[in-house]
């Protein structure tokens, strides 16, 4: 088994299962912060997917996407938090 096969047939499915689990939490909630956390997790899993896929396909260029993803996802989560704490209780 080559590294690429490992990444493709073992690592990516693992991450896929992880993604499904995270998705379940996104859909399930119950509260918005739970969903946000789960979405954040999905994005981080996405970085993992990119890493694995970069190895599987020998495409280093994908790494740039991972970097952008890491930076931008943080902003998104911050925005959510910003909203969550500003919204008046009701």
């Amino acid at each position, binding site marked *: 088994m080559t590294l690429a096969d490992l990444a493709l047939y073992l690592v990516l499915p693992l991450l896929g299962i992880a993604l499904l689990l995270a998705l379940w939490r996104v859909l399930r909630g119950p509260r918005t912060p739970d969903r946000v956390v789960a979405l954040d997790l*999905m994005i981080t899993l*996405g970085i993992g997917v990119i890493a694995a896929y970069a190895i599987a396909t020998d495409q280093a260029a994908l790494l740039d996407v991972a970097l952008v993803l890491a930076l*931008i996802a943080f902003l998104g989560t911050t925005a959510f938090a910003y909203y969550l704490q500003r919204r008046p209780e009701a």
Partner: protein
Amino acid sequence: MLNAVLAGFVLAFAAPQVARHLPRQAGTIAALLPAGIFVWLLNQAEMALGPGVVERWPWSPLPGVTLSFHLDGLSLLMALIISGVGALILIYAGAYMQGQAQAGRLYALLLAFMASMLGLVLADNLIALFIFWELTSITSFLLIGWHYQEERSRAAALQALIVTGGGGLALLAGLVLIGLVSGTWEIAGLAAQAGTLQDSGLYLPILLLLWLGAASKSAQFPFHFWLPGAMVAPTPVSAYLHSATMVKAGVYLLARLSPALGGTQEWSLLFMVTGLVTLLLGGWLSLKQDDMKRMLAYSTVSSLGLLVTLLGLGTKLAAEAAALYLLAHALFKGALFMVAGAIDHASGTRDLRRLRGLAGALPTGALAAGLAGLSMAGIPLLAGFAAKEFIYEAALFSGGSVWLLTLLLLAGNVAFVVVAQQMTLRIFSGASLRFEHFHAPGVGLWAGPLVLGALGLALGLLPEVTATLAGAAARAIYGAPVTIHLFVLPDSVTPMLLLSALTIVAGILLYRRRTKLEPWLNWLDQGARLGPENAFRRLVGGLPRFAERVTDMQQNGRLRSYVMWVVGAWLLLLALTWLLRGGPGVPSDLLARLADLRFHELVLVVVILAGLASVMQANTLLTLIVSLGVVGFGTAIVFILFGAPDLAMTQFSIETLGVILFVLVLYRLPGMVRLSPRRTVLRDSVVTGLAGAVVTLMILVITDVPLVSPLKTWFADASEPLGHGHNVVNVILVDFRGFDTMGEITVLGIAAIGIFALLKLRPGRGGESKAGDGEGRT
């Protein structure tokens, strides 16, 4: 001739200025133009009566359109009436409008109308004729609505416009068909194509369209009602447009086209029936009118019916009779209208029941009315007599149901005699009444009727002139040489003479017993006048209501219904196309194509679909946003998996930014509405599901065959050597298709401006309202 027509329009613009500076003389000054045209026409008479005068202006390469004029006997007769009566009317109007601020506008409109009418009768091109035809409708509209402050006037004007305008459009279709069928657009050349036209399958449609145009314009049954209504206009207008000239346009048209289209059974039947019904209806309804102008208007309707009957008859004699009657009628009816106006002006009323014994106070009026009335009644020595002789002659020699026709014509003519008596004996004879504010009208108001009345006498006394004039017109109508023989007095007793005498006697008897007819006439009125008029009223009044209902049903303000229309229309069109034109095909080997799906790709699909389901289920804002995020995230991963890192990057970034904006903008909104009943949800699901299926199918069909994209390979090869970049996508974006990107950032920039303005510029914060700033609704 173009100059004459144009001069009318140009002067129309000048008239208000003239009226401002010379209020007293303006009417007379304006009359100089028609008078001049009249003189010029007389000058041209010899040519016109002979070969005719033709003028052609290259104007437009539009198919069928030239600006060509043709002065022949018929148009000469009409043009003389138009310019002659026009000159008198303007003088009359000058006196009638004395001291009124808006007099200038009236002169202007009258001049513009005159020019249009001249153009109409002189035009030799079908389209040119139509142009002037419509212009007369418009000027007439403005003139009927002269007393626009009154609801009555506005309604009458609109009514006239819709009836004549609608007829006009039918006429246009008819004229275009004539042009297309015959291949010629010049009226002079149409007669030669009579065969082609009459043999064409389109002959009947053409005839019907023509009928619509002519009947509406010339107030034939069932369109007659607009004309009495139009009597709300000032008297000069009624006298000019609605008795002497414009209403003759329809008649003129029939006369003009009868050589090309007439002579067939269809033609005769259509126009004789119309004409006779109108003749009788108008004539007998005139008997029950108490308002002088309305009575005259009904009588005019009747006269027009008479003319249409004659044109429908289409014999040589009928053509002669029509020409003679056309002339005579213009003279006596114009005069009578002006008399009515003068009396109204003097006494303040037009009510026949309140007018009596005016001869003493208005001797000149009595003279003018007398002359005109005698002509109308068809008394020998006057122009009307000869006309009536010819009418009976035409009937007697018509060759069809002679006696029926004669009887009907007699019945119509009797009514004219009654009206003539009303306008003379009833008003002027007897003990004079006292009026509170009676002031005798000046010479300006009498000149017109007097001249017209005298002309009626003169033409009766100068049979050669009359015969020449009418003969030339009849020739044009009949389409073959015609010679009319006229006498001052009949030299022998003919059936026609006997019929004339009978008419007069019956008329006198009827006048004496007119009150006995009252119930019968009321019934006629209800059925015949109010019938069509009510129908029209209901139509025009109901139209906006109907339109409103239809419009409100569609434009119901609900966005979702609009979206549904769009989706529905789209699916419908697709369904029709696929059913009738064949579908897009069936994708092959779906299972084989599906088999290469890998596990992580399947996961991705599940993620996106689950996100979608969550979006559709979401009942709180944040759940919605997060779910949308899942879908967007999934999309970005698709881009990564299939070699589009740039796309993935952009999608992620935009996605996140979108979330931020969503949150920032919307978090103050309360929970979402969830109001749709189950049935709506079901319906929407089915419809949108179909839409989605369509898209899926299309993708599968299109991707079923390999794509050879010349662009793909070219860009891949050119990127490095020509674009100096290794990232082909980026090179396309900033170089190969940089123009798109320029547009893209422009969109962004504008979006920013718009958002900024939306957020910062609120109503109440801005400046005060200026022109067209919207109604201050908040």
